[in-house]
């Protein structure tokens, strides 16, 4: 029992197929990672203060890990 994975989330994920989940929830996360990484680079190039960039990088790392888990899980499902 944790508020991080409430029933409503679990049910929504369970009710869809793996492909549907990848095309919706997975896609949002991957696009978000890309957006954050692009944003961090843009801020760095624009010469903004390092605090923002470091904060974005700090958040992007676990998201990247999440994407890796997603890819690994799908790979495991694809492999015979």
């Amino acid at each position, binding site marked *: *029992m*944790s508020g991080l994975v409430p029933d409503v*989330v*679990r049910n929504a*994920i369970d009710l869809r197929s793996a492909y549907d989940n990848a095309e919706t929830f*997975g896609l949002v996360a991957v696009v978000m990672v890309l*957006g954050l990484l692009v944003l961090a680079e843009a801020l760095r190039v624009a010469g903004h203060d390092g605090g923002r960039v470091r904060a974005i990088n700090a958040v992007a*790392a676990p998201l990247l890990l999440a994407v890796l888990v997603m890819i690994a*899980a799908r790979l495991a499902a694809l492999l015979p």
Partner: protein
Amino acid sequence: VTLLAEQAGRADALLFGLGALALLLALTSLLIRRARQSRERDPNALSRRRTWLLRLLTVRGRRRRAADGLRRSIVARRASPSLVAGYPMSPGRTEIAPVDLATVAAALLAVAGTEVVLALGYVLVGQIAAAVLVPLLLIGPRRGDASSRHRRERTASALRALALVPLARVIAIALPLPDFSAAAGGLIVAVLVAIAAIRLAPRIGVATASLFAYPQLLSPWAPLAGAVLGFAAWFSGAPALAHDGDAPRALVVAAAAACMLAVAEELVFRGVVQTALQRAAGRVGVLAASVVFPLLYLGFESVPLVLTMAIAGLLFADVVMRTGSMGAAITGHVLLGAGASVVWPLVLGSPSRFDVPEPALDAVLGAGVVLATLFLLRGRGAGLVVRRRKPKPVVEAEVTGEPAGALARILRIRNDRLIQNSAALMLTSTATSGLGFIFWTIAANRYPASEVGRASAFMAGANLLAILAQLNLSAVLIRFLPRSGHRTRELVQRSYTVTVCLALVLALAFQVLHLGHDYLGGSPALQGLFVAAVVLILVSALQDSLLTGMRQAPAVLLINLVFAAVRIVLLLVLVFVTLPAGAIVIAWLTPAALGAAAVGVYVFRVAIPRHATASDGDAALPPRRRLFSFIAAEYAKSILTTAAGLTLPLIIAASLGLAEAAYFMFPWLISTALGMLLFSVSTSFVVEAGFEGERAGRIFKRAMWLGLIAVVGGTIVQVVGAPFVLGIMGPDYAREGTDLMRLLGLALPFTAISAIYITFAWMEQRMWRLVSLEAINAVTLLGSAPFLLAEFGLTGIGWAYLGSQMIMGLGSIIPVARRLRSRANHAVAWQNAHLPAQPDRLPAGV
């Protein structure tokens, strides 16, 4: 990507393609940064790159980075005289930094709105909203002029902290949860969210080290609240991660997930969000963080659960604010999560069988939320701060040439009588219980259940009489022997004479009245053995106390270990030779007889003369009247304890039969042993504080930690390990005793609270208070046990015991809290109240 699209479908192709792109971009970013550092020829770039992996992978690295940031911050702000941990704070009070409250409030509303959208079932919309919110919050407010820089930094910190909440949502929703079990999925989500919190914390000014700082102020309330609220959450319909019949591996994953999820939530909400908001808006900020926390639970569609978590959030927030440490709150949340998701579902199954009207539950929990809110608003404290490491004291050992550091600590422990004796007492309790468990396990596997039940009832009866006969002089001897001087032999001889005579009288009366007819069966041999058993148990207990009182606790450990081992060997020998009636009893008593003789010779020939010589012949026993009052109170207490504890097997043997008594005995034995562990800590603290009065405060703190470890370990062993432990003795024992053992385990935290109170009463020499406490326990337990036994069988005994311990524990909370608050004063009082070693500090009349 094209190949994948053909082979596996466009969803996987899209996922792989975008994932690869993200990784490529991250790698490019790193390479660019590295190249830039090299171009700038930063002399420290190489060393920083070397530690990058370490910093990413190890807590130590993260701590070092946080420390670096802190150091830079301190250098930059050295001008501020009230600087604490790089932030302008004064002790006990947060100085609120200027902040754009409208922006923070808007961010709070946006985060809350996202949670509401999710709770309404629009998961994709909620996730997209969260994904949009994260970068917006991370970017923070626009740049202003130089005068508003401080305000902008504080606002940015608050917004970045809030970004963790939608981030956690995006991660949790995006992960392929259907591929995992609920527990494994939760574990992965928790690890990733915890990583995010730990990485983001330094970016908002919370050093990573402070998230894992050791609690400086002992706060038992959060763990206690967590345990109670765990039950409330289970009752409110919290989903379970473990179910009866799950494989052991699944149970381990479920327990790990419950704990890790709790840790992650604490890191996010109390560690990062609360700290940032407290700096922005003081106590109102703490309250705002506590409001966001239960919103996460809206998705469970259970009002009682949301209210329960709101209470938990408010209480944990208060603890973090007051103690400046996450330790107690994390412990409390872990107990809550583990209780709601693992322990209670395993022990009690589904709460649906309890028909409680939901409006009533909502009203009670709503009142709890109001009270907790008031409690929080009354609280004071600066919240989570980085505690600077204390400068290393100049160790005496360095001056005298002794080795410093860990080795010195070990050497000091080896030479510290206090720790030796305390450890010996604890080990004696643990080892004899463990070996006793092995003894009875062998007996259960080799002998029929009726024979095991007969032996257990026999030993319980003999123990009961021995305890009645010894007048609890064991405790009295421990207390007065250190000051008995040349009167030691006289004191010991009189104790022996009086108690042995009384034991003989009681044992004979027991048989004349045919009280043990069920298990003695009219056999003259067993009757004779019974009389011998009473005397031997009595003498063994007295000898243990004699040696403990003369500070020879290691000898007690050695003796008990040897005789327990001999007992086991003898039992095995008797199994292979023959299976006579009463073989288990013979195996138990023979080493006790040999031991009593050998130790008796040692005590009278060696220990007593040595003790009298060491005390220079001075005797300072209390006046006879005070001594008798002490003995009377101790005796009354022991009778009540015995009545409450040892009468139960007799009741079961009489009402359910000998086999049921055997099924009861093992959970009871284990529970008693774990309870004794607690009282060993208490006893060793009392004895050693008596000898080392000046160090009573420090010893107390250590004793509390030891006790906490014993409680947590003992509860887990009994609740989670019940079927496995009892399964060792056979499937019948596991089937009949698992529920009972779990209920006994759940009573252990409450026993711990009353043990603390008992310790205080001992120290303050208010023995008659203990008598009243034990009377309440005995009346509750023995009054309810027969009814519950008739209704629920053996499990009813567990309910009766849990109920009596809850009453004792909850009744002790207020006096314990009062004393914990004024612990420093009590340490002085204890020091003055204790008898041994310091005649000039004895209270008047002693």
